[in-house]
């Protein structure tokens, strides 16, 4: 029997291992702070009515659905565009897109929400569109970069063996760029879940409502608990995305 002496026994790099530890750790710490606030601060009637579990639950659901819906929208738009512009014949469109979308990201989300509000009116849909616009760039850019970093010689070999353009895309290019594309999606998801808190500005609901009520009624513990919930939520989605990255990464890379 031969002993498999694989040169690939080096451990996963530190950054990659920390990736799955840091956000849960951070989230745990924040949650403890939230719990401490709940137990040790003076919760008066106003505070309790702001922090009504039923309200919180529906706000949580609103925030999550807004974050996820805008992320889904971004993926459905950005990944196909990224694939399209990396095909032969679109080099100009590609650089144009990357540059103009870069401008979009230098606008604050707040501004985007206001702009879309003046166009689409109040409601969660406005926020959805604003978030999708804002988080389009990381996904699009990573899709383009991911597809372009695939070794040209691998594609040349695939063509030379008679894979069709579609087979090269689905069997070679996408699997080999999935890690980079997912990194972009992860950024987008965290942006979207986190900034979904701003939805209350245009009547889109969400956990931002709790913070806002805390501010209006001058109740610091309500503000803190609302903030902790948003932060923990964003961290949770960061962790889930990290998991997806880890498990969708093809073996052998």
């Amino acid at each position, binding site marked *: 029997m*031969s002993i*498999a002496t*694989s*040169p*690939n026994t080096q451990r996963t790099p530190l950054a990659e291992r920390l990736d799955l530890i840091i956000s849960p750790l951070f989230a745990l710490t924040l949650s403890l702070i939230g719990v401490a606030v709940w137990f040790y601060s003076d919760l008066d009637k106003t505070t309790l009515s702001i922090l009504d579990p039923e309200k919180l639950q529906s706000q949580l659901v609103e925030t999550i659905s807004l974050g996820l819906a805008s992320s889904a929208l971004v993926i459905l738009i950005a990944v196909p565009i990224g694939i399209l512009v990396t095909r032969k014949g679109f080099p100009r469109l590609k650089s144009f897109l990357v540059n103009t979308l870069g401008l979009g990201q230098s606008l604050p989300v707040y501004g985007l929400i206001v702009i879309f509000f003046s166009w689409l009116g109040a409601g969660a849909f406005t926020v959805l569109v604003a978030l999708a616009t804002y988080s389009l760039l990381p996904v699009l850019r990573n899709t383009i970069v991911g597809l372009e970093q695939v*070794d040209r*010689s*691998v*594609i*040349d*070999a*695939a*063509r*030379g*063996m*008679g*894979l*069709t353009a579609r*087979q090269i895309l689905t069997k*070679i290019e996408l*699997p*080999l760029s999935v890690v980079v594309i997912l990194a972009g999606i992860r950024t987008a998801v965290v942006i979207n879940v986190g900034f979904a808190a701003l939805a209350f500005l245009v009547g889109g609901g969400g956990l931002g409502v709790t913070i806002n009520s805390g501010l209006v009624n001058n109740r610091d513990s309500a503000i803190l608990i609302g903030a902790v919930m948003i932060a923990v939520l964003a961290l949770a989605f960061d962790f889930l995305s990290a998991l997806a990255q880890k498990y969708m990464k*093809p*073996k*052998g*890379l």
Partner: protein
Amino acid sequence: MSDVLIRLENIVKSYGPDLDPAVDNLDLEVQRGEVLVLVGPSGCGKSTTLRLINRLIEPTSGRIVIDGEDVTDVNPSELRRKIGYVIQQVGLFPHRTIAENIATVPNLLGWKKKDIATRVDELLELVSMDPDTYRDRYPKELSGGQAQRVGVARALAADPDVLLMDEPFGAIDPITRDRLQNEFLRLQSEVKKTIVFVTHDIDEAIKMGNRIAILREGSEIAQLDTPEAILAHPADEFVESFLGSGAILKGLTLKKVSDTELHQVPILTAPVMREEALKELQESPDQVGLLLDSNGRPLRWIDERALNRTSQPIEKSGRPVTVDLQPEDTLQDALTVMLQSSAGMACVTDRRGKYLGCTTIESLAKLIMSDGQG
């Protein structure tokens, strides 16, 4: 009529009306079962020519005929599945195992799973890699030489008649390259494919090719002939300068040790008495004898002087035989070993290391002389 498998007719590849064409009106015929090497300075269009055959590059005009069929306008993907393709960077799919990589074309062709598995093992054996060890590994776990073996196995997977190789050993260190070249020649003697092989290295061309096409700019054929004929009669100054100096020395790579007459030196088989050995050596015209072990493997070169130094046992006198040759090694290898050997000759052994005879400078010179006359 000779058996032409690939024919390029009036092929032109031009990248624009203002540019000189990369391939200018090329006619080329490749015989069935031969290794045709395209060699030339960089930028001469040799790779372009190769990639025109499987239409990775589409010709501007002209016809490509393979096995009597005009393939200039057939579906290029289907065409490529029938033609093996090996490139310098190998281009293994990093996310697929070795077995999956090799199975690429059979999978595209819809072979049965069981047939594919059998074929993969067969091919790994063919390129001297243990199937059980390597089947489930990933490309990043392979050395450069191993990766290119897999590259060759992958190209041979669906048993294509034609194999296109674009500087396949160009990125591999010289020692491994030499071994892969030898293995490739052995493999080709088994599989007898029609191979078009691109290289910029004239020595590799001479070693690998049945015929060589020396190309100059625009993929124009400066000379197309057997290596021997090109070395003996270069067509023009361009070919001469491309061959460089030492054409005779280059010719040595074309001949094998088995082409020379082996010389027999006095043989001493261990254990041996000193007196016996001395007698043996004195009776022979040779200055030096060879001590073999009980299995007939050469151990040491021994001369009279060494035997007279009685302070040492015979097994430790004389000089060790460091390298030995096998009949299929080239005369260039033989020359190197001879020049390094203290005895001025080199031992030839069979695969199991058993002594067969010696090659000498004289036998080598004799072979070169007879070649020049013939």
